[in-house]
């Protein structure tokens, strides 16, 4: 939906085929990260997510009966979006669809067809021929490009006979979303070896909007799924956790196992994979939906330029390059978290518990405790679309990084990077250039005088700087000062035309 909205807003005709009708009702993702909200803001749907979502900062980690430590993701000042919100995935999807309706009314060429299942496909030279099944009978349709966002079990991937390799973790997690008006604080509580009866290896309690709480129990490998999902068994566990007499309704329960795997390549000629169809991670760290939205952010502008003949098709290969890099980072983080949660050998359990014991008394051990490293945006270090980094500037805004937000009086920097190539000149002269090979370049001139956020995040010790951003707000190149030629050549690199 994010991709459809982004492309449609740019004027590219998009047709969404979904074998369901309407927003998915399963409660899956709950944790949405700052970068996702920033992308949603660019698409116009972010504020409603933030308004509806639960903002949280404090996490507590327990081991058995003891509290090991507590952390505070104390948000940094000068950002429009919070570090994280909790929001049920159906709301997230609904706000995107609502924004698509707004865009449609404004003339964006987007069409959504529910209960339209893709059943076969044939790649031709200049299009993909799809067979689509509907309640009113089947039909065929030609698409110039097909983006397969059809989930972890991707039928399109299967139809093309492509592999999806990685690791399956031998573990089962029971999730229960319960509705209750309890006065637990808005914090993330995580237990290793929880003290309540039959809670398994670990447990999680986390608040969502509408008085819903997400509860997770790690049950191990050899279980009887059907039995564990029976309401009385779920209730017995939840009762033990919340205490006798707690009043709640079960909203949704499910048992899942998880895997970390990805496709070799995300682009196969005119078929491009995005989201869970391309890569799957364990939920610890909230990297699934968050990385899917970053896929969309990465792909939309590239596809738009290719379709309009402003960039070579090779630009689409960099989507695969960059997002494979992102997926590997997410898989690495999520695999490490899983190894900490479920020690795979006797000695790894000895070390795990040693870390938890030490963390109680000594701050040094706390960073070693891993109950999921929360999703942070990916930096495309050393990849092919990067231009020169000529500024001795801050590390966090280096070439390849996504723009870091900064408050500018009443607005924010990210609001001023509107999905086009943008040249930001901070206390530096603006080179005279406003398009490169037909691709427009927007200018933004700012001063860091009196703005400590800009100075700290974009200048460091430099007196001034010129930053070139891609439409997805990643840094292409930066200089202390730049000529029009410098900018043009960096922009050509970022358009996949080589140096």
């Amino acid at each position: 939906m994010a991709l459809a909205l982004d492309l449609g807003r740019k004027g590219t005709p998009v047709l969404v085929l979904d074998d369901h009708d309407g927003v998915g009702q399963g409660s899956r993702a709950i944790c949405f990260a700052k970068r996702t909200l920033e992308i949603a803001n660019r698409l116009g749907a972010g504020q409603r997510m933030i308004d509806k979502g639960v903002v949280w900062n404090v996490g507590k980690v327990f081991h058995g009966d003891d509290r090991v430590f507590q952390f505070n993701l104390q948000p940094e000042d000068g950002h429009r979006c919070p570090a994280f919100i909790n929001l049920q995935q159906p709301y997230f999807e609904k706000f995107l669809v609502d924004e698509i309706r707004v865009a449609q009314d404004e003339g964006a060429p987007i069409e959504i067809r529910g209960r339209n299942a893709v059943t076969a496909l044939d790649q031709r030279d200049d299009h993909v021929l799809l067979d689509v099944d509907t309640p009113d009978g089947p039909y065929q349709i030609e698409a110039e490009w097909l983006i397969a966002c059809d989930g972890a079990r991707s039928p399109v991937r299967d139809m093309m006979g492509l592999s999806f390799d990685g690791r399956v973790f031998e573990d089962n997690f029971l999730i229960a979303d319960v509705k209750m008006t309890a006065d637990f604080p808005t914090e993330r509580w995580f237990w290793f070896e929880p003290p309540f009866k039959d809670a398994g290896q670990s447990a999680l309690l986390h608040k969502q909007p509408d008085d819903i709480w997400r509860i997770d129990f790690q049950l191990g490998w050899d279980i009887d799924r059907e039995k564990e999902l029976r309401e009385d068994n779920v209730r017995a566990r939840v009762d033990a956790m919340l205490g006798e007499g707690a009043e709640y309704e079960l909203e949704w329960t499910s048992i899942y196992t998880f895997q970390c795997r990805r496709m070799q390549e995300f682009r196969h000629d005119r078929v491009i994979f995005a989201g869970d169809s391309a890569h799957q991670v364990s939920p610890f760290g909230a990297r699934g939906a968050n990385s899917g939205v970053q896929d969309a952010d990465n792909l939309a502008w590239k596809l738009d330029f290719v379709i309009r003949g402003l960039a070579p098709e090779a630009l689409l290969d960099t989507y695969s390059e960059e997002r494979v890099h992102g997926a590997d980072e997410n898989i690495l983080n999520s695999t490490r978290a899983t190894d900490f949660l479920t020690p795979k050998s006797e000695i790894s359990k000895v070390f795990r518990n040693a870390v938890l014991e030490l963390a109680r008394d000594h701050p040094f051990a706390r960073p070693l405790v891993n109950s999921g490293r929360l999703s942070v945006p990916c930096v495309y270090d050393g990849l092919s679309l990067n231009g020169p980094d000529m500024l001795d500037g801050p590390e966090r805004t280096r070439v390849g990084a996504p723009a870091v937000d900064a408050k500018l009086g009443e607005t924010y920097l990210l609001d001023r990077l509107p999905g086009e190539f943008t040249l930001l000149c901070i206390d530096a002269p603006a080179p005279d250039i406003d398009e490169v090979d037909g691709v427009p370049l927007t200018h933004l001139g700012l001063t860091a005088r009196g703005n400590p956020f800009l100075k700290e995040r974009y200048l460091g010790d430099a007196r001034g700087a010129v930053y070139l951003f891609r439409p997805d707000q990643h840094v292409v190149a930066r200089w202390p000062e730049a000529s029009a030629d410098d900018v043009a050549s960096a922009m050509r690199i970022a358009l996949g035309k080589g140096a």
Partner: protein
Amino acid sequence: MELNLEPNIADPDGFYDELLAVHQGLSKEDSDALNARLILILANHVGDRDVLTAALKAAQR
């Protein structure tokens, strides 16, 4: 910094004594746990990632 594999402990016999003494009377399980805590404490004290990698290699033989 490089991993120091030359003698560096002033009172080798005294240290060795102390190391065995903390394990005195512990079950295998408790000794393993103590060793793990000790490794983590020492590793943090060293801090330097390259030295830690070199130490892990040296221990592997």
